[in-house]
């Protein structure tokens, strides 16, 4: 992609280093995600992908370096500040709330919206109810968009894995994110679901940036604009899928591991 220079930057990591004792999990990592761009973060096992996600989300403080969200106008954020700032993340695996229905799980994505103050809701005032009702309608809209309305009343434990993954995405969308972070969204999905997923991300990119960690190479190659390749905590290459697939360092890293 050549036009990235003119687009606004949604996420920027600058010289981020994370040290766990003697282990350098991330070593001077810098990369950017631009508006409406889809970026894939790839690398062998233990390369530091999840650590990078955790740094962006404020779950892990960098030993040095900075994380910022320039287009949102924010520096580093605490996990509980992300949703409000427009950053949504799905967790590796599914990460749903076990004892809440699918509908409630999706509604939870808008938990940080204004309204629904405890004082009003304890007295059962109509204002709180109105907000709840509109959240419910919105959650149903997302379930419908993903074609899973019929599971609204089910508990997460009672739905197939592919459905649960969709629910976690619907939940992230409730936050109306500007940056959507997906940790291994394709794992456990079948061919048909993968194809649907590519279509969905293609739609979502109209309104947001996407950063995803993924192991499934075929899937990631057809989906992203740019790839960031990590190996032993270091960025060894950044570029388009076609650049990366012929990059000798990347091939060596992957072949060396395999």
């Amino acid at each position, binding site marked *: 992609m050549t036009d990235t220079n003119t687009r606004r930057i949604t996420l920027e990591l600058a010289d981020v280093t994370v040290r766990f004792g003697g282990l350098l999990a991330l070593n001077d990592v810098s990369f950017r995600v631009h508006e409406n761009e889809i970026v894939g973060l790839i690398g062998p096992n233990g390369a530091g992908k999840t650590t990078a996600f955790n740094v962006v989300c404020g779950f892990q403080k960098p030993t040095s370096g900075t994380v910022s969200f320039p287009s949102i106008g924010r520096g580093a954020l605490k996990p509980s500040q992300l949703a409000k700032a427009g950053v*949504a*993340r799905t967790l590796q695996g599914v990460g749903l709330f*076990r004892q809440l229905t699918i509908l409630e799980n999706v509604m939870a994505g808008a*938990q*940080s919206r204004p309204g629904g103050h*405890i004082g009003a*809701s*304890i007295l*059962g005032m109509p204002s709180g109810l109105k907000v709840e009702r509109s959240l419910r309608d919105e959650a149903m809209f997302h379930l419908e968009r993903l074609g899973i309305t019929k599971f609204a009343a089910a508990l997460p434990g009672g739905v197939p894995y592919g459905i649960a993954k969709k629910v976690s995405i619907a939940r992230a969308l409730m936050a109306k994110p500007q940056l959507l972070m997906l940790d291994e969204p394709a794992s456990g999905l079948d061919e048909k679901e993968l194809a649907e997923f590519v279509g969905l991300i293609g739609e979502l990119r109209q309104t947001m940036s996407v950063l995803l960690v993924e192991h499934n190479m075929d899937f990631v190659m057809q989906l992203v604009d740019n790839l960031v390749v990590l190996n032993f905590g270091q960025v060894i290459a950044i570029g388009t899928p076609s650049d990366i697939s012929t990059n000798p360092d990347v091939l060596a890293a992957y072949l060396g591991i395999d």
Partner: protein
Amino acid sequence: MTWPGSFRRQETTHVRLLTVLGLTVLTLVVTFFLPPVADSQLAGGAAITIVILGLSWLIGWSGQISLGNSGFMAVGAYAAGIWAHHHTASPLIFTFLLATVVGGISGLIVAIPSTRLRGPYLAGMTLAFAAAITPLAQNFTSVTGGEGGLFFNTLTTPAWFLHFFSGANASINANAQWTADLAVVIAGFMFFLMANLFHSRSGRAMRLVRDNDVAAELMGINLSRTRTLAFVVAAAFAGLGGSLFAIINATVRPESFPLTLSITLLTLMVLGGIGTLSGAVIGGIIYSFSANLVSHVNSLTGVNPTSNLGANMQGIIFGVLLILTMLFAPRGIAGLIQRIRSFIYSRS
């Protein structure tokens, strides 16, 4: 768009309000036919129901254990007692409000160091708080009345209510029933508030934190603030329940709220059904009539009620009931009723 039926049911305040009003009025009618002793027991049960509502919110919804609820009750009771002792003309509603607020503050004080603690550590912390209350009350004699406690008579049956009663024991009957009715109305109101909370966004926040705290944080929830809020609400409910308890008995003493009461509250909550509104009411009803149950069992088994065994019969009965519930109805009596209901519906 069509909704699964179960969602629509929970959503309207007026349905909730009508249900609570209906049940409250029904209970008020029942108090009219009960003898004075039973009325007094019912009043105590209503106070306990309020405390269990808070406990169920804390444990069932926010997933935090508390063995300190007898302590929160004591705080509310002493707040009410000390206030009413000095301001005999103060309106009752103010005394209740004060007890609720002071109870909530004690919850805040316990919660701040506790929200980082889990499971047994949290249980220990709250237990220590409850254990500290009795010696505190014994020592600050000038404020708390020490061992003898405080006596205060804030309940006066209004003249219009006395008109309904006649005969030899008219005033005794009227007083007992007035006390019961007042307690039932307050419990009904608190039930309504908790029902609203259960179905509110704050209620959902509690369940998110309980189920998956990492994901909850990503939803924008401040974990320690949410856990603290759970404690404050539970302690406020306990403070009100404790003050009601004290006002019913017109006294508060250091041994009014022993540690064993915390265990009893937990037992009643589990028996009724953890995290359910109806479970709190069922727990309160069981408490109301536990004295009758104990004397029944004592006479059936021929145990002398003043013997060591007889004196501890309530603990034994609750213990057995608790084990039976956990084995055969893990979701308590409320869960059992739910199961029977859906069984009947599925057959018809």
